[in-house]
């Protein structure tokens, strides 16, 4: 069904307003199979909003969003089905607080994908092993450190065998010492060829993991280039001042 050259995620001329605030301005963007695209930019530039429009946690005013060539449905079961194919990792982890880590992992695979419960549990344990929190499987989220919670949240998204993963500032709520362990997991996913769109403030990580960097400011894509070019020779004045501000120390 999938054409070899069609992007997994595609945005065409997307616009969004919050009242008088124009938060996304004519955004067009493609993420191809196996590609890692990292969005950077100052706070309020619209990068988180952009990330959230892709599985319609934010609606858009105009433009088109396509997932694997299919227009994102606006509601109902069809929307739920598309969402189940795109993994999302949040800043605040959002593990289900009343369930064990293992139950967090198996809820959607069993409930949405109708997988066999036993199989789902076995796969969940394999994924928890892979992100290094298998020993926490029977605890509830509040008993885990932030880094462990976020790694479990990544595993929960992977359990759906998604076509692509969205990361909305995955390390912004973490203590400095826990950031590295989460970035490590994401880097491994990149190596394994997972298609990813990542919003982050971690510039070193962005440079290492990205195939392409998108720099946003005031709701616009200001610059789009490969990481070396972006970090060494930013084209726009806005990107230059942003980079000098975040890389000063």
């Amino acid at each position: 069904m999938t054409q070899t050259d069609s992007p997994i995620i595609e945005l065409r001329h997307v616009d969004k307003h919050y009242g008088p605030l124009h938060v996304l301005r004519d955004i067009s963007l493609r993420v191809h199979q196996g590609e890692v695209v990292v969005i950077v930019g100052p706070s309020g530039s619209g990068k988180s909003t952009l990330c959230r429009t892709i599985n319609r946690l934010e609606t858009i005013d105009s433009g088109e969003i396509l997932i694997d060539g299919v227009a994102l449905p606006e509601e109902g079961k069809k929307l739920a089905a598309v969402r189940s194919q795109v993994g999302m990792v949040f800043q605040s982890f959002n593990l289900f607080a009343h369930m064990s880590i293992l139950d967090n992992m198996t809820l959607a695979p069993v409930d949405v994908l109708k997988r066999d419960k036993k199989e789902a549990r076995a796969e969940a344990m394999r994924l928890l092993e892979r992100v290094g929190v298998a020993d926490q499987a029977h605890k509830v989220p509040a008993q885990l450190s932030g880094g462990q919670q976020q790694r479990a949240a990544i595993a929960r998204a992977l359990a759906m065998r998604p076509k692509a993963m969205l990361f909305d500032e995955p390390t912004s709520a973490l203590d400095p010492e826990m950031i590295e362990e989460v970035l490590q997991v994401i880097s491994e996913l990149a190596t394994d060829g997972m298609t990813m769109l990542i919003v982050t403030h971690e510039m070193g990580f962005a440079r290492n993991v990205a195939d392409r960097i998108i720099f946003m400011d005031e709701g616009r894509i200001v610059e789009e280039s490969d990481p070396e070019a972006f970090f060494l020779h930013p084209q726009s004045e806005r990107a230059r001042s942003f980079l000098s501000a975040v890389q000063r120390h």
Partner: protein
Amino acid sequence: MKPTSIREMLYEPPGPAARKRISILTWLAMAALVVLTALVIRQFAVTGQLDARYWSFFARATTWRFLGEGLLTTLEAAVTGAGIAFALGFLMMRGKLRKNRPLRFISAALIEFTRGVPTLLFIYFFFLVVPQTGWKLSAFWKITLPCAISACGVVAEALRSGVNAVPRGQTEAALSLGLTDTRLFYKVVFPQAIRFVIPSLIAELVIVLKDTTFAYIVTCADLMQNAKVLISNYDAMLSVYLVVAVLYILINYLLNRLSDRLAAGSGRTGAGRSAV
């Protein structure tokens, strides 16, 4: 995390002078309480309320069986009423949280109506108006239904506040995994919401239980009604009321302890307290 009491949250810990003042005031209050109790008992003795004829029938098993039967009816009415109130309250809460405007309006109106009207009016409605329509209800339902209806609006609002207290991120995570609105409500939101509002729900159960004392109006043989029978049989108002009051206090105390225990238990599972 160590559970913090309300007192610890609101006031700083007392220093040496404050501790001294607190202990003096405590002793004074205790002394005042003892003196007052002594005065009350003395007054009882003077007016003859402590005479054996007012108390001796409590030595008979039949008295306790009679009160026990009443107590059982009270509990049945309260539990049934609370069950119905929960079911109705749940439906009204679901209605009020819907996007559908008419449904939301009807639910909101029902909630305001049932919360605003005193229980006694509902009881008179079922006692005086309903029979005229030819709908024959037993005395039990004539007290249980109005108590349930009177409580359901409060239950609906309690549940709604619980649902609203569940962090938005929980819903977003469930949506992003492909759960539909209904599934995510029952699997993710409601199980957490109910933990938040257990104390309010049990408080409402206590109110339903106390409302059932209106059963004497519809001559349903609950604890209060049977107490009244004892009073007229033995001409012993004070002793019977005292014993019945102790029974009500005991039940409600146990309910409140249950509430504390459930609330503490759900706190341990960390509902809604995950670090952000």
